[in-house]
């Protein structure tokens, strides 16, 4: 092999290694909840609505909550059976009813710091809406999350160790006509990392 060819091969090899390093550095890692050991609380209900589309063994319960009527629900993070998507599910633990969202597994958060999903019963007229809740998952950089109500007031939301959350709008707020307009994620210094409108 001639000297120019050797130099060309070395150049290509270095470029390939550099490209691989950049790709690794910029690739999105799985949410931390999926990496931690599974426990009994992570089991999806046997009657979960979309169970046959999910890899049940991947599921992690990332938050729990109760609606005003006492119904217990949980938020699960799970892969689809083909591994292509990650889904966050607001799940009724008695009926198995589920709602939420799925994003590509390789870019679950994309450029966002927090993903949110709004759910409710009733409507479409605002006066008949009840059980308004917001579920979500935040990146590790997020230290706190609040829900911004119409009028500008913010309500704190508890982040779990998995960086999941579930917020149920108090019935008193609903009766006053308040609306949850956005979810705001901040870092430890209080800097706003993301603001996601709920669409409500």
């Amino acid at each position, binding site marked *: 092999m001639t000297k120019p060819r050797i130099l060309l091969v070395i150049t290509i090899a270095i470029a390939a290694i550099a490209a691989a390093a950049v790709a690794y550095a910029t690739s999105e890692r799985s949410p931390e909840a999926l990496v931690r050991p599974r426990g009994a609380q992570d089991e999806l209900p046997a009657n979960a609505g979309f169970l046959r589309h999910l890899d049940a063994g991947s599921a992690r319960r990332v938050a729990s909550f109760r609606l005003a009527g006492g119904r217990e629900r949980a938020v699960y993070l799970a892969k689809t059976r083909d591994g292509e998507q990650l889904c966050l599910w607001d799940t009724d633990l008695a009926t198995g009813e589920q709602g*939420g969202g*799925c994003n590509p597994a390789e870019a679950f958060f*994309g450029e966002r710091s927090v993903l949110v*999903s709004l*759910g409710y019963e009733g409507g479409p007229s605002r006066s008949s809406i009840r059980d308004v809740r917001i579920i979500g998952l935040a990146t590790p950089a997020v230290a706190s999350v609040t829900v911004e109500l119409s009028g500008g007031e913010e309500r704190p939301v508890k982040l779990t160790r998995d960086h999941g959350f579930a917020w149920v709008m108090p019935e008193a707020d609903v009766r006053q006509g308040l609306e949850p307009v956005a979810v705001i994620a901040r870092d430890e210094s209080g800097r706003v990392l993301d603001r996601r409108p709920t669409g409500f």
Partner: protein
Amino acid sequence: MSHHLEPSRRADAFRRALLVGVLALALLLPGVAAGAGYAYAQDWYWTWSGKSAGSSFSSVWKHNWFIKKYPGYETTVTFIDNTSYGWHATVRNDWQTTPTTWNSSAVKKAHCRSNTSLEFFGTCAVASN
């Protein structure tokens, strides 16, 4: 994720999206139909906020999901009963797939709605189990 395309590129993008959608449905629907017995899908280029699609009224519907080509387009999925015409198990977000289930035996129709003025390709799919 926003996708603003020039008009000259929009037709190409639409054709590609249509092809992807048709292929996806060809793969998805037989599986859904085989498992469910009943399935419905509305495959559309969603072009304005408020555009909606839905199934017929039936007691069999249980699952409703809005599948978009990309995340970033805000959509709503719900079920509408045929007595009060109220909404049930409503979910609204901008994830790539927005799913919901309602186990009620009531007669209802699945309803999907776009909440964005951005144009996107998506499928409103409904199944009984």
